[in-house]
């Protein structure tokens, strides 16, 4: 195959054309960014940019970009540009182009030309078929540039001629009213076309063929990864920005400014006053806070961990170390995986039907703890089992060769070796359940905005008696709040219920932020633990 295609190893003469293609990719990226900005109303479609109206600018750039890409393809076909195209653009690309042009043909025929059903079906088929033929029949350089460039140029012409202008509206005419307006349609069309042309230009930059496809695909895959991270960053940054003012409202440091606490018989004032996390909600508070919800979340997590971790680790030990691989371990695996994917609201329903009637017939902290414990259980089993399976069998054999019993091997060899993995799994699982709303909504939720006096005090709540049930704890048995539930109830509460809280919006965002901080804190610790132990393992 080496001599079948004659290609220069160093292709100096292609640097100019490569620069054109790279420029087209760059222009597509600019256009994509511009359309995103327009979509989120950072710029409106009627705004002039450098004296040119936004619509005209977008349209002009699209036409330019489309023509550049088509020009590149035609130039390659005529031999002016050195490339390595395949005989055809491939079925996937052709199918995609056919679909795109099918939609374009149908919309133009039915909406712009006003043809009836038969008319638009014919137009759609003609446009789609033509696009398929154009991309499938000619060589790849034409097949992958012409339909894409034509699509962009067509959109540009539509914008430039004002068929879709700033005041364009397409009422869908549905029974429940909905319509597309220019402020949405123009950016989304531009974004789509710039992606399409950007892909075609990236392919052209790679000289089509295997290398071109490689580059075209990589551009899209990288863009996808980048946008996922961007969305994550935006979500977190937005919540932080909105939540910070409420969170640190009236924060003060200094001796004796904080609330009084009693530790081991000594009463003193904390040197910090942070009203949002130290207060409840009350009419006379200067700054309302979410202390009861924070305490509730902490106790929920403790209860769920105390319930689920021994059970989960024990089950993992049994199916990994004791049981022979067979029907039984399979059933356990299927059951744990099934439990893992069970929707959280179903756990809530289960808690409502199973726990609530048996725990004093009302919603309670204990019911919430156990429900979240049920949710945590499969996660603990799965991660513990994985990390125990990762312990090399040599360890077990060496220990067994010393003549110790199986349980001693497990206790002193397997569990310590698997501990990092188990810990990481538990921390990540706790992060997940700390943010769950649906299960506790049905099993433990209390008032919308609890006052500070309703903060749970589980340790102080235990009471012992000689009559059954011998041990009682009213703190465990009453409804309380937790951060995710607090946020939910603040969103859905009517005006009357939240009138105690002055700046309700600030309060909500601060609650969302502190929830995010708590949950992502668990995740950060979990991920950091994993990296720490992994790097330690690699150094050994």
């Amino acid at each position, binding site marked *: 195959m080496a001599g079948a295609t004659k290609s220069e190893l160093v292709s100096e003469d292609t640097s100019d054309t490569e620069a054109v293609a790279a420029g087209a990719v760059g222009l597509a990226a600019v256009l994509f960014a511009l359309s995103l900005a327009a979509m989120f109303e950072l710029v409106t479609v009627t705004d002039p940019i450098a004296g040119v109206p936004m619509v005209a600018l977008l349209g002009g750039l699209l036409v330019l970009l489309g023509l550049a890409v088509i020009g590149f393809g035609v130039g390659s076909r005529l031999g002016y540009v050195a490339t390595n195209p395949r005989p055809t653009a491939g079925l996937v690309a052709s199918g995609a182009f056919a679909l795109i042009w099918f939609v374009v043909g149908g919309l133009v025929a039915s909406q712009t030309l006003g043809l009836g059903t038969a008319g638009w079906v014919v137009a759609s088929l003609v446009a789609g078929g033509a696009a398929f033929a154009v991309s499938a029949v000619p060589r790849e350089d034409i097949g992958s540039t012409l339909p894409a460039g034509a699509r962009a140029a067509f959109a540009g012409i539509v914008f430039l001629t004002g068929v879709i202008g700033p005041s364009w509206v397409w009422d869908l005419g*549905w029974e429940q*009213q*909905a*319509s597309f*307006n220019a402020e*949405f349609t123009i950016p989304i069309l531009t974004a789509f076309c710039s992606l399409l042309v950007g892909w075609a230009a990236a392919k052209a930059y790679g000289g089509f063929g*295997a*290398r071109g*496809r*490689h580059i075209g695909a990589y551009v*899209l*895959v*990288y863009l996808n990864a980048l946008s*996922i991270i961007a969305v*994550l960053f935006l*979500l*977190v940054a937005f*919540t932080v920005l909105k939540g910070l003012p409420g969170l640190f409202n009236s924060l003060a440091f200094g001796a004796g400014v904080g609330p009084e606490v009693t530790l081991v018989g000594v009463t003193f004032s904390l040197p910090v006053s942070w009203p949002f996390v130290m207060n409840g909600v009350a009419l006379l508070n200067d700054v309302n806070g979410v202390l009861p919800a924070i305490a509730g979340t902490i106790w929920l997590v403790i209860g769920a961990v105390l319930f689920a971790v021994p*059970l*989960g680790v*024990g*089950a993992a*030990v049994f*199916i990994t*170390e*004791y049981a022979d691989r067979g029907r039984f371990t399979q059933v*356990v695996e*299927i059951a*744990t995986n*099934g439990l893992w*994917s*069970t929707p*959280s609201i*179903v756990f*809530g*329903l*289960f808690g409502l*039907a*199973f726990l609530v009637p*048996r725990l004093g017939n009302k919603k309670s902290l204990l019911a919430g703890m156990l429900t979240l414990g049920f949710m945590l*259980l499969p996660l603990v089993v799965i991660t513990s089992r994985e990390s125990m399976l990762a312990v090399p069998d040599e360890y077990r054999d060496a220990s067994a060769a010393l003549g110790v*019993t*199986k*349980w*001693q091997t497990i206790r002193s060899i397997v569990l310590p070796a698997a501990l990092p993995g188990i810990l990481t799994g538990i921390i*990540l699982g706790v*992060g997940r359940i700390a943010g769950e*709303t*649906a299960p506790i*909504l*049905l099993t433990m939720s209390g008032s919308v905005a609890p006052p500070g006096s309703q903060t749970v005090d589980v340790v102080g709540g235990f009471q012992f008696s000689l009559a*059954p*049930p011998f041990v009682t704890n009213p703190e465990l048995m009453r409804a309380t709040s937790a951060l*995710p539930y607090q946020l*939910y109830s603040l*969103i859905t509460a009517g005006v009357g219920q939240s009138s105690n809280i002055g700046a309700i919006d600030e309060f909500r965002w601060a609650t969302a932020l502190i*929830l995010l901080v708590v*949950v*992502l804190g668990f995740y950060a610790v979990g*991920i950091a633990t994993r990296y720490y132990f992994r790097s330690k393992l690699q150094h050994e």
Partner: protein
Amino acid sequence: MNVLPNSDGAGLRAAARRGLRRGRDFVDETPPDALVTVTVAAVSLLAAFAGFLAASSLTAVPFAVFLVATGYGWLRHQELTARVLTLTTTVSTILVLGLILVFIFAEAWPTVQYATVNVFGVPIPGLRLFIETRWSPVTPPIQYSLVPMIHGTVLVTIIATAVAAPLGVAAALFLSEIAPKTVREVVKPGVEILAGIPSIVYGFIGFTILSPWAADQFDIVGQGTYLFVGIVVGLMALPTVVSVAEDALNSIPESMKSGSLALGTTDWQTMTSITLPAAFSGVSAAVLLGVGRAIGETMAATVMLRGSPGLTKPLYNVFYGNDTLTSLIAANYGDADGLQLSALFVAGVILFVTVLFLSIGSQYIEARMRQKLGGAD
């Protein structure tokens, strides 16, 4: 037992005999006081469980006995006690799944029975839940149709899958095949953190930012659209798809990829013609799990939707969002009782069974793939 074919009957009998023999050996080999301890512990734990089921105030007594017995056993016969305790925890894990099944089915039954329809004289329980289209638990005629909510769940799931499947698989490809090490160290925790953001926070941002924006953009009356709930839920299902698909892609032996690359293909050609086809079943299992996540997602839907059960008009109008199965439960459990509460449990049963099937299906696919790639396991 004469219904069974002969060989099966013989096999069963042999298995039973083997089990019996093993049991007898166990009894013979174990010291009597250890045996007594374990028996006492087991019986008292069963009694405690029965007491809890019956909501008895005496539950604490057998539980205390269990604690004492296991404590004694731990000190005197740690080997056996550890084994029995871990077995107990395993059984209780399965028991949880069984209890969920039993309890939500039991609670759902009254409404299923209420909605019985006679078809040609054959009563079919629950049929009326699916052939009516009105959810009207208070104003007569009382109807508990789940059709509007199923419609909503289906729409949201389709949109969410359209978002999560392609983006998730592309991100998995990126993480497992394309990204340089340093980039992966940033993107992978990022995807995990995306999974960590609580659903209510997604819902809150959707409720305060996306919903008003969508109402403005599409000239919709009121707020709440399946389209944007679907997009948000898709974002939440994305990490599940990414991590499971990445595992599947990573399980493809390096030798297969190297063999392809040695023929002079580009990385992308190797991915599309070797890695992806070989990992196809694993990747589809990932998508199935993502679909399961999307179906069960509750809080974002509850907060962002209108909470007024009904079909959109026309049916494919995704710009209006009424209710999904999950949001129906979350929004209505408070003031529901009797048959209405039971109807919510029917919604829960539908969710549970659907997602359980998806989970089992994806496990089956993954097991098949592992078998194919790794030979006999």
